[in-house]
């Protein structure tokens, strides 16, 4: 995975999303996950971050249903459901994701699978509720 460049830090994330994977940053030296990336790794003082692909399983930390959008997004019709998905394998980092099914009412703690879907012409994180027991 290429190291991030200051001028376009989030490019590897966008490339991952287009290929169906969600990427977060970790310290290029000590590998501690830091999302969003800090100015410097607090553990080893390294200033370079690398991107890694996450396991797409997580849990709902919390969610909301947006009826009146605060930012206009082409083709995203309200109401839609947004959640913060906690990814245990990524040291509890949280992914902001749209519900694939906007009519669903998630519950805090629900198991979900992260996916990617196009929003306004670019792939973005989504989630679907995982079947019970998965």
């Amino acid at each position, binding site marked *: 995975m290429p190291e991030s460049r200051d001028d376009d830090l989030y490019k590897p*994330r966008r490339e991952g999303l287009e290929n169906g994977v969600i990427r977060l940053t970790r310290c290029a030296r000590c590998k501690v996950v830091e999302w969003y990336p*800090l100015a410097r790794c607090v553990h080893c003082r390294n200033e370079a971050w690398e991107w890694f692909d996450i396991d797409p399983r997580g849990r709902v930390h*919390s969610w*909301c249903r947006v*009826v009146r959008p605060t930012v206009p997004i082409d083709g*995203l019709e309200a109401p839609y459901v947004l959640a913060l998905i906690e990814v245990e394998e990524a040291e509890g980092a949280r992914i*902001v994701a749209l519900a694939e099914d906007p009519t669903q009412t998630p519950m805090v703690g629900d198991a979900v699978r992260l996916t990617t879907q196009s929003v306004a012409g670019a792939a973005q994180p989504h989630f679907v509720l995982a079947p019970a027991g998965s």
Partner: protein
Amino acid sequence: MVRAVVAGVGESHPVRASGRRVTSHLFAAIDAALEDAGISATDVDGVITEAKLTPTALSIDDLVPALGIQNLRFQALSSPVGAGIMLAVAQAHEAVTSGRATHVLTYFGVDWGSFGSGPSGIHGAMDAKREVEYPVGFGGPQLYFATMATRYAADFGLSRPELEDLLGGVAVAARRNALRHEHAQLRRDLSLDEYRAEEFFAEPLRRSDISLLSDGAVAILVSAEGAVRPERRGVEIAAWAHRVQSIPDQAFYTQSRDLPAFPATTAVADEIERTLGASVASAGVLELYDCFSVATVVQLEALGVTKPGQTAALVADGALEIGGERPTNTHGGLLAHGYLLGASHVAEAVRQLRHDAAGTQVEGVDSAFVGAGPGRQYTGLYLRRTDA
């Protein structure tokens, strides 16, 4: 050590859209504060203001010659937005008590009611938010506090109707208090039934859970006790504290592992109690940064006024209203008085302690806690009458 007093308060009262630029509101507020204190601009020898919005609205460099300040001895920028407005007042207190300055002016204003993008503009300028959050429609504080409210209800086992009653109770109290304040922006009563009938903006938040947008300004002058007339020596900052959680601003609302708790707010309450020997809960009125109704709830708990998850009982009793057992945001707060990011909270607290509040007086009050963040950073001021 010199004793410092809050000698002057000036306001350009909040309105939805004045069509006037922020500088016009700021000069009106500053002139009023100096007049209130009975001093002239040439007496001012210190200026401290909030660090993020004010430097572009009216920098200290531009303010000093415009006021004709001739002997500036002390200047500083505090920290960003709400907590920074409070911190500027606290630092003014330090500058005066240390003898570095005699009259320190602090000021803050916005014209978001008429111009600009408001708080969403600030948050959208942070790179992670622009890259990660906005493209999926997760834009701005309203959605942070909506998700926080949902998590709060889940953590403490509140059903949806119980959460609705809790948030609605806070919103109703703010509106009832504002109704009595002659300069509040939103003076229209709200019943719990009317609240419940409002449509969601971002479930579980409705319009009345969300801060207003305003134009307006506040200036607060902190002076050496001996340098002002006796009737302006009545209110002092008995204690203050500031804390910052070690997490970037842009990451706090999605990534803080402590959410929906606010460790910086709790740390401020602990330090106030340690330095003052009295708790935040001992204050006669509370003026808390209520950008959303749920922010009042989590602050009451983080400050130790109510126990975690137990605020609903207090709110249901109407305790937050003037005349209630725990008068809070007596001017109506950001929800109903106006969105000056906490600056009006300070002004209201000082007027309460002067026993000169504009229709909202809590009888016999002699101490007030004013707090703002709430989030990554928090500042608390414990104000007291000097005769208390």
